[in-house]
Each structure stands twice: as structure tokens, then as C-alpha cells.
């Protein structure tokens, strides 16, 4: 392993040194392909982000895939109704590893203005691990771009060895997250305890 000072010195002389891990992560972070689906009004902002004015292509994330088999990133853009939640979880399960999730907007992160409603899931992070949450109703395209940049920073930092390595390199990490069923009154189970625990009541 090369120390930082030698590396600085070499780069000043015009020699770029890089580890295989950095090269791998550099490629990964600049080719994040989102899954092309929108659930509600946040999707309109997502579409605007992919168009010329905000141009998500600057971050290599313009290739919206119509099949989860080819996507790395799930942008949960909008209200997740309880009717739709099992499908979203199943789509997430069908994406190949390594995969990332951006929960976009107040609804996707918490239920938003429909939090008290009977038919809206109070945050997709109850069932699948979310990497970046974006607040806003809806968030502006700049906020989605910021989330993409944040995700890129996260991917860049992910070491390929050690306990913090991405999930696909951990043999005992779950490959799938159970999709909830429609129960009599609510989704069963109401959350995945391995991913999300309800906050303890303050007395």
C-alpha cells in the first residue's frame, strides 16, 4: 500500500496511482442505472431531472432501465400505498446486487401528508434498506441530484474487503427481503424487523 505523501508527490509529477478498489468503485459510482418507475408526483420531478435542464446524465445515471434485472438503483419516487408496497419490495428483490435505494420525497420516507391515512405505507424503509432519504414535497430536481451525489460518495467509500463491504460480497447477508402480504387490516408483517424497528415510546 502506497502512503499518501508518495502518492501526492507522484501525482505532482504527472503519474496517477490508483488501487484496483478505487478503479472498481469509480466505475461503479459513475454508472448507476436507475430502475425506471415512478409511484406518484415525485416521479414528475425525477423525469425533469433526467431531461436537458437538470441532465442527470452528467452523473452517469441517465440510463433508466425498464427491467429490474438491469438496474442498480431504485428511486422510490412518490407515495407508496399499501397496495403497491409488496410490488416495490419484489422489484427490489429482483434487482441484481449491488443495489441501492433512494427514497424520494416526504411520502417515500415517512408517508408524508398521508401519514395518518389508512392506505399509505409510512416509509419504504420499513421493508427495504434505504441508502439516501430526500425530504421535500416534492423535492426539487436539484435535491435528487444531491441524493445521487451523496450515493456516489457512499459507493466511492465502500471498501471491497472488511466488514463494511457491500452486501453482495457478504456471504451471509440476505439476498432478498420478504415482501409483505395483504392481511385482514394491514400489511403482514407491518415492517421488516431486520431493516426497521418502530421507535420506542418516550414515557
Amino acid at each position: 500500500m502506497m502512503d499518501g505523501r508518495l502518492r501526492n508527490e507522484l501525482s505532482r509529477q504527472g503519474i496517477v496511482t490508483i488501487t484496483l478498489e478505487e478503479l472498481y468503485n469509480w466505475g461503479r459510482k459513475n454508472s448507476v442505472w436507475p430502475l425506471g418507475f415512478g409511484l406518484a408526483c415525485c416521479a414528475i420531478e425525477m423525469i425533469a431531472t433526467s431531461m436537458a435542464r437538470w441532465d442527470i446524465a452528467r452523473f452517469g445515471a441517465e440510463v433508466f432501465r425498464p427491467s429490474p434485472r438491469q438496474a442498480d438503483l431504485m428511486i422510490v419516487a412518490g407515495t407508496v400505498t399499501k397496495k403497491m408496497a409488496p410490488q416495490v419490495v419484489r422489484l427490489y428483490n429482483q434487482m441484481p446486487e449491488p443495489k441501492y435505494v433512494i427514497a424520494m420525497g416526504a411520502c417515500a420516507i415517512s408517508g408524508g401528508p398521508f401519514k395518518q391515512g389508512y392506505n399509505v405505507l409510512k416509509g419504504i424503509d420499513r421493508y427495504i434498506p434505504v441508502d439516501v432519504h430526500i425530504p421535500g414535497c416534492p423535492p426539487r430536481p436539484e435535491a435528487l441530484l444531491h441524493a445521487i451525489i451523496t450515493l456516489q460518495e457512499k459507493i466511492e467509500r465502500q471498501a471491497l474487503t472488511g466488514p463494511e463491504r457491500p452486501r453482495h460480497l457478504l456471504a451471509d447477508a440476505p439476498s432478498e427481503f420478504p415482501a409483505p402480504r395483504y392481511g385482514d387490516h394491514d400489511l403482514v408483517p407491518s415492517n421488516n424487523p431486520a431493516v426497521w424497528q418502530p421507535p420506542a415510546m418516550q414515557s
Partner: protein
Amino acid sequence: MLVEDHPYLLILLLSAAAALFALVPLGLSWLWAKLFSPPKSGPDKNAIYECGLQSSGDAWVQFKAEYYLYGIIFLVFDVETVFLLPFAVSFAGLPAGAFVAMIVFLLLLVEGLAWAWQKGVLTWA
């Protein structure tokens, strides 16, 4: 010179290079996936893609192909009309070969009509 003795050697070499050109990247990407992205499969991931919904039933179901009868009868009547009209207009000046060819064509279509008639397709209600 080896190439002058065997003129096909160059083609052989070129095809070997072409095959390698296609196979080496495939093999490298397979190796890369094996090393850096081990497969993580499961029942959901291996399931048929149905926009997140669970697929219901079997894909190997029978489809009714009854439309072929309409197709054949349409061909008999419509195509026959298309060809009969110019045939009738230029009937007086036709050579014998053209006449025979037209009759053979007509008989082929009439055979289809007879087959449909005998099958009972023409009676409905």
C-alpha cells in the same frame, strides 16, 4: 512461404482471431463477475418478471387458433376477386399459357373453398 503454400491459412487465422475477439471479453467479464460480484439468488430474483406482481398460472396454455378459417376464406374470396377482374378484362387477348396458369390458380382457391364447405364452415346461425 507458408501462406503461399496454404492460401486458406490466412482465413483460418482471421477466423481464430475473430472468435477470440468475441470470446475473450466474455470470458473476462465472466471471471470478473465470479470474483467481484458473486451471485446472490433467491426465489423472487429467479421469478418471472411481471412488474413486481407474482405471475399466476402457467405460460404453456393453449390458444384457440380458430381465426385461421376466416383467413383462408378471406383469401379465397378477396384475392380471387382481385385477380379475376383483370383476368376477365384481358381474357380475349390472353395466350394459352397465361390461361392455364390462371385456371390452376383458380382451381387451387376453389379447392380451399370446397374444403371449407365440406368442413361446414360456411353454415352458421
